[in-house]
C-alpha cells in the first residue's frame, strides 16, 4: 500500500531530460571550487602581474615624468641638432636606468634577501619581472625618441639609438657591478652616485665642447657599447647565480 502511494508520488515528479552540457557545466564549476586555497600557487604569468603592484607608485610617476620631460625638451627645443639634443639623448638613458636601479635596490635590503632566497619564487624571478618591465618601458621610450627625432629633426635613426642606448648600457653595467660587489645597505647610494657621475661626464663633454657626437667617434661609441653590453650580461648572470641560493659566502647576519 505504502509502496503504491510512494510510486504514485514519485511519478508526479518531473525528471528533466539528461543534458550532457549540464553535466559538463557541473564538472567545470566543480573544478573552479577552491577547496584548499592554501595549497594553490600562482602560475608564472600570474606571478609576473602580481609583482607589478609592488613596484612603488613613486617609481612609475618618476619614470613617466622623466620620459615626458626629456621628450618634451627634445621635441620643443628649437636648437640645432649639433647642439644640446645629443646631450639630452645621452643623459636620458642614465636617468631612466637610475630610476630602475633605485626600485631594484629596494628589494636588496639587508636581511630581506635571505627571506626572498628561501621563497618558492626565487629571487631571480623577482628580478626578472623588474628587468623585463623596466626594459620594455625604456625600449618604448627609446623607440619613440628615435623615431621622433629622426622624423622631426631629420637625423639618422641609428644615431639616436647609439647615443641613447650606449650610456644606458654603461649605466646598467655600473649598477650591476655595484649590486654584485657592494653591501646591500650601500647599493642605493652608490648607484645614485654612479648615475650622477655619468650624467656629469656627458654634461662636461658638452660644456667643454668635446665633439664626441661626430661621425669619427661612431666606432668608439660602438666599441664602448659592446664592451658595456658584454659586461652587463656577465654581471647579470653573476647576479642571478648570487641571488639564486647556494652562496659560497654569507652576506649578512652571520655569526662569523
Amino acid at each position, binding site marked *: 500500500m505504502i509502496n503504491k502511494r510512494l510510486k504514485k508520488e514519485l511519478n508526479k515528479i518531473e525528471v528533466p531530460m539528461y543534458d550532457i552540457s549540464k553535466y559538463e557545466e557541473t564538472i567545470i564549476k566543480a573544478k573552479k571550487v577552491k577547496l584548499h586555497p592554501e595549497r594553490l600557487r600562482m602560475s608564472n604569468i600570474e606571478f609576473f602581474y602580481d609583482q607589478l603592484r609592488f613596484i612603488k607608485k613613486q617609481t612609475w610617476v618618476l619614470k613617466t615624468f622623466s620620459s615626458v620631460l626629456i621628450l618634451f625638451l627634445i621635441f620643443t627645443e628649437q636648437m640645432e641638432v649639433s647642439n644640446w639634443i645629443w646631450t639630452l639623448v645621452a643623459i636620458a638613458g642614465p636617468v631612466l636606468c637610475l630610476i630602475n636601479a633605485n626600485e631594484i635596490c629596494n628589494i636588496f635590503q639587508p636581511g630581506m634577501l635571505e627571506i626572498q632566497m628561501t621563497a618558492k619564487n626565487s629571487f631571480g624571478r623577482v628580478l626578472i619581472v623588474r628587468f623585463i618591465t623596466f626594459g620594455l618601458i625604456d625600449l618604448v621610450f627609446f623607440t619613440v625618441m628615435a623615431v621622433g627625432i629622426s622624423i622631426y629633426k631629420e637625423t639618422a635613426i641609428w644615431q639616436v639609438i647609439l647615443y641613447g642606448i650606449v650610456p644606458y648600457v654603461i649605466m646598467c653595467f655600473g649598477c650591476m657591478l655595484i649590486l654584485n660587489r657592494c653591501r646591500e645597505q650601500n647599493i642605493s647610494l652608490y648607484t645614485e652616485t654612479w648615475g650622477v657621475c655619468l650624467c656629469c661626464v656627458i654634461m662636461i663633454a658638452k660644456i667643454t665642447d668635446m665633439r664626441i657626437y661626430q661621425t669619427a667617434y661612431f666606432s668608439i661609441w660602438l666599441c664602448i657599447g659592446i664592451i658595456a653590453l658584454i659586461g652587463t650580461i656577465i654581471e647579470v648572470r653573476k647576479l642571478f647565480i648570487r641571488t639564486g641560493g*647556494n652562496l659560497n659566502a654569507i652576506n649578512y647576519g652571520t655569526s662569523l
Partner: protein
Amino acid sequence: MQLIMEHLSKQFKNKIAVRQIDAVLSEGIYGFLGANGAGKTTLLQMICGIIEPTSGEVKVNGENNIQMGERFRDMLGYLPQEFGYTPGFTAKDFMLYIASIKGLEPKYAKRKTSELLRLVNLEKETNSKIRTFSGGMKRRLGIAQALLNDPKILILDEPTAGLDPKERAYFRNIISEMSKDKIIIISTHIVSDIEYISDQVLVMKKGDFILQGTPEELLDKVKGEVWSCRIPHKKWAGFESRYCVVNSHVLANDVDARIVSLEAPIDGAVNVEPTLEDLYLKCFSDEMEAGE
C-alpha cells in the same frame, strides 16, 4: 617527513663554521642551542639552501634540498637572524609581498595576512610603516611572514630576540600549537625559549652537536651536579674562577649561589633540580672563561 643532514660541513677560508654534522629530524620542535659563533646560523642557512655546504648535503625525504628547488622552498618558512624590509612598506604591504614571492594566490594571501597579523598582535598596525615599529614588533612581523605558506619546515633563527617576556611566552605557545605535522627548528642561545616546547634539544659548540636528546635526557646529564649554597663573602672570591656559577645573589653576610659542580662546593650545599640553563652553562663555561 624527514629532514636529514649528512656529513654537513661549511668552511669559510681557514675557519670551519660547521663540521661534519649528521642528524635526522622528523616532525616536532627542535631547539638548536649554542653560544654566539657556534655555527647555528650557518647550519640553518645550509638547511634553507641559502649557502652551499663545503661537503655533505641536506635531504628531505631522501631528496637533496637544492635539487628539489621550488618544491623544497615551497615547504619552507624562514626567519633570518637579521630581518630586513623594503623602505616605505607597511606591515600589510610586506606580508603581501612575501606572500607573492611565496606564490600564494592574492585573495588567499590577503586573508592569511590579516589572520597572521592578528595572531602576532599586529592587527592594529596593519597599515603602519615598518620603520616606525619597535624591535619586538619587527620580530613578530618576521615570525608572521615565515608562517604565510603554512610551511612544513619552519626555521626560526633567534626568533625571540627583542621580544619582552610576555611576547616570548606568547610566541612559545604559538609555536607549540602549530607543531603538528611540521619540522620546527628554533635556533637560540636563550634556553627558556626552547626548554618547555622542544621535543629535542641539540646543543651546538664550535660547529658540532655536542649533545642531543629530549630536555629530560639532557637534564639527566647534570642530575646531582647542581647545588644551591650560601658562601661567606671571604670565600666567594675564588669560587667564580673555580666553579661554574649559574646565579649569584649578594646578601648582607654571604652570597646565595647556584653552582654546577660534580661535588658539593661547600659544606651545607643542597643538591637541587637541574635546568637546561645549568647544562648550557656547564657546556659553555670554558668559552666564557676564555672570553674573560
